[in-house]
């Protein structure tokens, strides 16, 4: 089993930490991971993306051009990565981040209105966890118990009270993800 995921959006949306929590959750069930961010001046207020690879075998190249899953949170990222999803793969997007709907017919496409659900939880910062929940509902590659452990490892102890909030955000995403294109 090997899953190559690109998560892309604006700097500040929590793209990198979403990838980190996903990667940590996979380590908790003893899988191999790589987490490779784009880094550079373009990250300041601009686009940020991270490629996370999860595998049950040792991972060779951390750099790939085609992805099993693309999670895109703004228009630039949709434009950049829609065509990079492998046929039969998965695209998840946030409808409030885009102006043009995805058009591929050969991949599964799902949407999650994460801003609305994060607002319902009373903390816009858990936006990324709502998105993560949406992804894990469609592709449960890590068990929810391990996601909790991943959260515990990723969130500094002094913010331990936020683990519950993040967990409910993940749940919210799981409950509300909609499929807009089945293959």
């Amino acid at each position, binding site marked *: 089993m090997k899953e190559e995921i690109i998560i892309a959006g604006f700097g500040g949306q929590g793209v990198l930490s979403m990838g*980190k929590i996903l*990667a*940590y959750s996979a*380590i908790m069930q003893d899988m*191999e*991971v*790589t*987490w*490779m*961010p784009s*880094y*550079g*001046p373009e990250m300041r207020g601009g686009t940020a993306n991270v490629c996370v690879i999860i595998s049950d075998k040792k*991972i*060779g*190249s*951390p*750099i*790939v*051009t085609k992805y099993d899953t693309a999670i895109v949170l703004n228009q630039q990222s949709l434009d950049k990565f829609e065509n990079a999803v492998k046929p039969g793969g998965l695209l998840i997007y946030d409808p409030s981040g885009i102006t043009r709907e995805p058009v591929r017919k050969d991949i599964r496409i799902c949407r999650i209105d994460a801003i609305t659900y994060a607002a319902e939880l009373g903390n816009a910062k858990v936006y990324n966890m709502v998105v993560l929940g949406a992804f894990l509902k469609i592709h449960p590659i890590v068990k929810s118990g391990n996601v909790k452990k991943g959260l515990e*490892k*990723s969130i500094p102890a002094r913010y331990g009270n936020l683990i519950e909030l993040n967990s409910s955000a993940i749940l919210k995403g799981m409950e509300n993800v909609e499929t807009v294109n089945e293959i």
Partner: protein
Amino acid sequence: MAEKVLMKGNEAIAISAIRNGVDGYFGYPITPQSEVMETLMKEKPWETTGMVVLQAESEVSSINMVYGGASCGKKVMTSSSSPGVSLMCEGISYMAGAELPCVIVDVMRGGPGLGTIQPSQGDYNQIVKGGGHGDDHNIVIAPASAQDMYDFVDWGFELAFKYRNPVVILADGVIGQMMEKVEMHPMKPRMTDEEIREKAPWATTGKPSWRNYNIITSLSLDSDIQEEFNRKLHAKYALIEENEVKYSEYMTEDAEYLFTAFGCSSRICEAAVDILRSEGIRAGLLRPITLFPFPHKEIKRLAARMKSMMSIELNFGQMAEDVRLAVEGQCPVGFYGRQGGNIFTPEEVVAEFKKFNNIQ
């Protein structure tokens, strides 16, 4: 069981330094390796192991602080990226001349000059062929994962003290910035004063009555003495070449074509080998783990049964020259590289491989 943690290669360097009893880190921030000092400052090892962490005013100061610490037999290190390491080269040469052990981490970025902040392997010649002026050699080890970054700190100090020589961990922006699973081994305490006197009897630890004073210097104004010393240095390098070569092979048992690549490029080549194998093409990979000493013999041995070889690097073919020297004309040696901070993909390497070998 060893604790498994998700961390960046840069963070692994810092955590490993603390956990392996390093006495001091002196550095100056530069992308893409700033997390090394950031992590050390966050971990505050001076409160636990007593390790000193200091941000110097420049890379020149950092390397000279390393010189000072190493003179006292302490396990001291620094880290930087390409332009910063250029500034350190004078100090590195002085340390080679004074036979001082230390670990220097170079997380390479695109050059020349200030260049870009993206990954590169453009400093192979600079670091592997010397590091400073004066016919010296660094021991150069090239990590390809966050786990390597963690493990090579301890290995680096082991080599540095064994041979009284600077060791460079030659990494790149990918290995520094990428997060992976790292297994942490039990902590090693820092060396006691007694252990330092035993392990580094040459160090300036205070003159006891029963021996003459120790002198740490790279200055010698007598040509005969200097020549004699250089011969001694090169005998040491020969010993290192004899004993310390390390490399790894991937799918070479029945290979007809061989890639050579180090650091992050070796990871990408592994994936390229997998693609070629799935098409029935018997490709393999040799990854030099030590760049000095370079695995000349092993490459020569493998070249004898290859149809061709190809060196894949994030530069314009610096290691390829060493590969060609090792191959001794036994088979054609090609090269493919990207520069300036751009990285090739496995598919790109496969396409270039096919072009070079006229395979459709």
